[in-house]
């Protein structure tokens, strides 16, 4: 090494191995964490995309009813990576069907990549390779269809249409979103059930003229988009460009590059035709069609990157600062023989970058290992969440995602961080003259005269020492304050922002009109379907209740769109929120008259939950409910006053909202307690709405009800007792069928006491034998897709918090070690004048407490505006959502910091207690 400054610095580094290793580990951890952010994000996103693609497939967008010309236009767009065409060829008769409600096959034709993109998995045989070959859904075979590989299906394609028959009467098919006036005809989709013709409507077959002789070459798993109630089983053949006419285009985007106007461009090409985006897959890469989700994903990445870099800068800066005094001595000596300020600065940079060079490859390697290890450790959790989904996805292996570009970015960010961390110590050291360096008189203001300052001798010796020590060593304790502040800052900001983000993502990804029953505390649930809640169910219920292995049973009925109420029942808050949502759809401010005009006619729906007496009493206790009203003898209800209105759960036909906006509602209705909810229920027997008023006994917010349910609904929900529920069911029962499918149906929740009685086996056998009517499952297994995805996001964010905390802990550990080590001569002096260990420990406790309180104040002053800004930013993007201030997070972060800071202090103090012989110098 020719440069003498570098040579001296290198020797000094070797002589101070402990400090050198600390600096090295600081830089190493910084590189590791930056690698985790870049590689971890890409790997996790890739993995989650793969997992998500198990839900709806790998496709990114699908455009419906396209033409050849549009196909060519789209193919020329830079954001398109790959395309595949598909078409709905139509229905064909399926005489082999064993289900009289499913007498058809619905045949779809796919180009080769579409099979993979749509998750069409072969169970037996192979996929169709040429015209005239088909694969059939396993659901047909499950229903007993007499068909196997090699059989042929004579296909004469037809469309199904429905025609309204009664003039002046609108026939509504709510689940298919069809409203049919008398005389109108509409083409039916693949999901439409098999209905017999009646006096209201007629279903016809319209043959397209296309015929095929199709050979079955394979059986595929039931596709995720196959509807159980549809009139036809799904079957797939090869796409035939010459015969299939209008087709759909599925495509994959080029996600590697930024395409700002991608979604707008696609919508322009599609015009008025439907376009669907697979946001489950796109959301994780920050490229979903939903700008809010994109914004949140991008914000998270930047946010974590900034926090890690900030923590790393403080860590490395602190390491350099701790060694400032010792370093300044040898640099002072160099200076006394003619070293310039530049040379002194270069010593600091040399040390920083000579440590960065080995730390970079090692940090990247370790970061990749941490990512792989972390992801693999997370897999069981991810699968335990995923197992709650209706369709259990295949195991997806974790692939590390790293490119040369990533390595360059990591090297650049790491280098920049090291440079930024070293600049200030380098500048400071270059300004100190040789005399100060050699004397060790480094502080510009070493000991201020204490004139005017109140003497501390009235305090106890420990407090006096702590107070004076802190005043004297202000510069030296600054590193520790900084470390404690950044630790608290990272804990509070990451946890609070994680909370806010997951809350928003939960809301955004939540299926609308969903009420989830909280399964905590219950082991199993038995759900009854398709009008089977009759005598057989009552017997089963008694058997379960009397089983010695069952500790508790909760019975519950639920039904959406059970009744209707006049529009004015809904509260002012609800209408205001809806008005804002409609403004977004109409891209302008609608006047009150205009908006009200849209809702002059019609009613609002009411959904109902019926619970057993004990649960009802508990809910009444937990909510704002008047007991006297409950005992009034009339049907009473507890109204769920929380609701949600957003551009996702309110759709205005043929209109696209300006942006996504969400409104959380606290008062769905302004009706007072004791007032009547004027509900009507449709009676099939009487063929009219029947009055069924409910006395409002109380209100429950979603917070009050969170022990029982999570509500995500734009409609009004009421909770009633079982006998009220039974009365409603009697009205809803169809003539001659006391247990019709439109009625509310029960679910039994069971808590087991561990005694084995064979009940579980019997219930499992019952489900297997009669799966049309019963579903028996573990209570915690019933989860929604959004629950699953949010849990995964939470785990990943938690990992980020933990990893960032590592760097902060290292920083705090170092700072406290440096602080205690510098105090060793003082401890020795104190011992020589008779201070006990306990007194020195107490003095340090006081000092630590003051340093901690100082850190708390500065942290709160920085963090609170930051959190408020993040909240404001997110609420501004997202809409009116109630985000509580994270007081608990503050308290937890302060508590953890207290434990850590005092723990480290006591640890270092006990390690450094051997200072007896060091006091002579």
């Amino acid at each position, binding site marked *: 090494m020719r440069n003498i400054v570098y040579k001296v610095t290198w020797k000094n580094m070797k002589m101070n191995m402990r400090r050198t290793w600390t600096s090295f580990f600081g830089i190493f951890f910084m590189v590791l964490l930056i690698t985790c952010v870049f590689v971890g994000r890409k790997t996790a996103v890739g993995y989650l995309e793969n997992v998500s693609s198990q839900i709806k497939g790998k496709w990114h967008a699908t455009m419906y009813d396209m033409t050849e010309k549009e196909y060519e236009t789209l193919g020329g767009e830079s954001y398109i990576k790959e395309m595949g065409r598909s078409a709905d060829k139509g229905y064909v008769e399926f005489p082999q069907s064993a289900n009289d409600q499913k007498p058809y096959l619905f045949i779809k034709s796919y180009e080769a990549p579409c099979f993979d993109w749509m998750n069409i998995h072969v169970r037996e045989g192979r996929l169709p390779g040429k015209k005239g070959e088909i694969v059939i859904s396993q659901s047909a075979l499950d229903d007993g269809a007499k068909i196997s590989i090699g059989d042929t299906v004579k296909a004469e394609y037809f469309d199904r249409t429905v025609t309204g028959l009664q003039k002046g009467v609108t026939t509504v098919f709510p689940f298919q979103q069809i409203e049919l006036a008398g005389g109108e005809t509409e083409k039916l989709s693949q999901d439409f059930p098999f209905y017999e013709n009646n006096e209201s409507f007629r279903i016809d077959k319209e043959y397209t003229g296309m015929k095929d002789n199709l050979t079955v070459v394979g059986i595929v798993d039931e596709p995720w988009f196959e509807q159980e109630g549809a009139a036809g089983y799904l079957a797939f053949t090869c796409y035939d460009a010459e015969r299939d006419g209008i087709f759909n285009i599925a495509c994959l985007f080029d996600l590697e590059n930024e395409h700002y106007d991608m979604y707008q461009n696609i919508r322009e090409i599609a015009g008025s035709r439907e376009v669907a985006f697979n946001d489950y897959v796109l959301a994780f890469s920050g490229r979903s069609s939903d700008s809010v989700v994109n914004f949140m994903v991008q914000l998270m990445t930047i946010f974590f990157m900034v926090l890690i870099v900030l923590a790393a800068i403080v860590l490395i800066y602190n390491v350099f600062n701790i060694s400032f005094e010792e370093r300044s001595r040898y640099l002072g000596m160099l200076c006394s023989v003619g070293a310039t300020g530049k040379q002194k600065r270069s010593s600091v940079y040399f040390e920083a970058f000579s440590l960065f060079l080995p730390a970079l490859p090692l940090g990247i390697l370790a970061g990749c290992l941490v990512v792989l290890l972390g992801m693999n450790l997370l897999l069981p959790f991810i699968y335990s969440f995923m197992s709650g989904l209706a369709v259990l996805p295949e195991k997806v292996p974790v692939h590390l995602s790293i490119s040369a570009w990533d390595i360059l970015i990591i090297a650049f960010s790491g280098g920049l961080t090291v440079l930024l961390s070293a600049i200030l110590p380098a500048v400071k050291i270059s300004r100190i003259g040789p005399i100060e360096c050699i004397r060790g008189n480094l502080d510009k203001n070493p000991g201020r005269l204490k004139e005017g300052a109140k003497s501390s001798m009235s305090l106890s010796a420990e407090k006096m020492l702590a107070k004076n020590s802190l005043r004297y060593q202000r510069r030296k304790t600054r590193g520790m304050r900084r470390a404690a502040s950044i630790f608290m800052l990272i804990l509070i900001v990451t946890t609070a922002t994680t909370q806010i983000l997951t809350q928003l993502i939960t809301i955004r990804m939540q299926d609308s009109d969903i009420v989830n029953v909280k399964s905590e505390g219950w082991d199993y649930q038995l759900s009854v379907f398709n009008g089977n809640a009759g005598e057989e169910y009552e017997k089963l219920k008694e058997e379960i209740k009397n089983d010695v292995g069952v500790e508790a049973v909760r019975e519950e009925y639920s039904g959406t769109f059970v009744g209707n109420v006049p529009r004015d029942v809904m509260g002012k808050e609800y209408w205001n929120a809806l008005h804002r949502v409609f403004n977004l759809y109409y891209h302008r401010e609608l006047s009150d008259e205009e908006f009200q005009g849209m809702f002059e006619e019609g009613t609002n729906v009411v959904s109902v939950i019926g619970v057993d007496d004990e649960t009802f009493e508990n809910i009444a206790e937990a909510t704002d409910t008047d007991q006297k009203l409950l005992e009034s003898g009339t049907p009473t209800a507890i109204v769920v006053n929380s609701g949600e209105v957003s551009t996702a759960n309110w759709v205005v036909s043929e209109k696209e909202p300006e942006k996504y906006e969400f409104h959380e509602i606290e008062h769905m209705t302004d009706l007072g307690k004791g007032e009547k909810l004027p509900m009507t229920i449709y009676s099939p027997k009487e063929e009219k709405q029947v009055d069924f008023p409910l006395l409002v006994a109380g209100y429950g917010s979603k917070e009050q009800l969170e022990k029982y349910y999570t509500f995500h609904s734009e409609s009004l929900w009421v909770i009633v007792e079982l006998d009220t529920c039974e009365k409603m069911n009697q009205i809803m029962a169809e003539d001659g069928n006391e247990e019709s499918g439109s009625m509310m149906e029960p679910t039994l929740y069971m808590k087991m006491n561990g005694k084995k009685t064979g009940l579980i086996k019997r219930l499992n056998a019952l489900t297997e034998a009669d799966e049309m009517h019963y579903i028996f499952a573990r209570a915690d297994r019933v989860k929604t897709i959004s629950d699953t995805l949010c849990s995964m996001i939470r785990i990943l964010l938690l990992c980020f918090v933990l990893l960032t905390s590592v760097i902060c802990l290292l920083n705090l550990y170092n700072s406290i070690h440096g602080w205690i080590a510098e105090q060793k001569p003082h401890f020795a002096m104190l011992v*020589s004048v*008779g201070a006990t260990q306990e007194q020195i420990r107490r003095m340090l406790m006081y000092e630590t407490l003051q340093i901690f309180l100082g850190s708390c104040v500065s942290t709160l002053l920085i963090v609170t505006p930051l959190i408020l800004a993040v909240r404001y930013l997110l609420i501004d993007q997202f809409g009116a959502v109630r985000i509580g201030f994270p007081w608990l997070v503050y308290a937890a972060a302060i508590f953890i910091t207290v434990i850590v800071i005092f723990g480290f202090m006591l640890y270092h103090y006990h390690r450094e207690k051997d200072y007896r012989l060091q006091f002579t110098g």
Partner: protein
Amino acid sequence: MEILRCENLTKIYGEGNIRTHALKSLSFSVEKGEFVSIVGPSGSGKSTLLHILGGVDKPTAGKVFIDGTEIHGLKEDKLAIFRRRQIGLIYQFYNLLPMLDVDENIGLPHLLDGRKLDRERLDNIVEHMGLVERRRHLPGQLSGGQQQRVSIARALYNRPAILLADEPTGNLDRSTGAEIVSLLKEANRTWKQTLLLITHDENIALQADRMLCIEDGEITRDERIRSLGGDE
């Protein structure tokens, strides 16, 4: 009256082949009010002896009795309390706490004892040491001689049974050193303060009542220079 007695004091540093005998079965006693100087070449064991006498280091073997108490038989905390009440230590490099002002440094052992400062005594001692103008100064703002005077004042404030000084003039110029020695002698005479002083300076050593010479951890000479009371 005997105020200090040490019996067979031995101190060994290191282990195996690198064992160093700093003190070799050293025994002597000191009378109350006696001024004893300890001389010897560098590495002879003087400072080790003083640290052991002051209770800040432990002997490998042997006992130290101060005012009848075997100090190394005391538990750590008891020894610390004994030290702040009965022993005054003065060092070559003053060992003042840089963050405390003159008054606070002087009163520190007393404050550590949980007692209130006796203002009159503090004023007296500060005046006696010529530090009245410097009471609110920090050690960094004082000269070497002033710092050593603070150190002596601190050692004397509690009126300890014994004052142990480890080359108190080693870091000072001749005249300041003489000033410090005269202060120590004055304390010895005025308050009958027992004083053990380590020095390299023969002139200072000869001002004591008695001189102990240590070489290789052993007392090679124990010479009375003048009788207790001042006669040569």
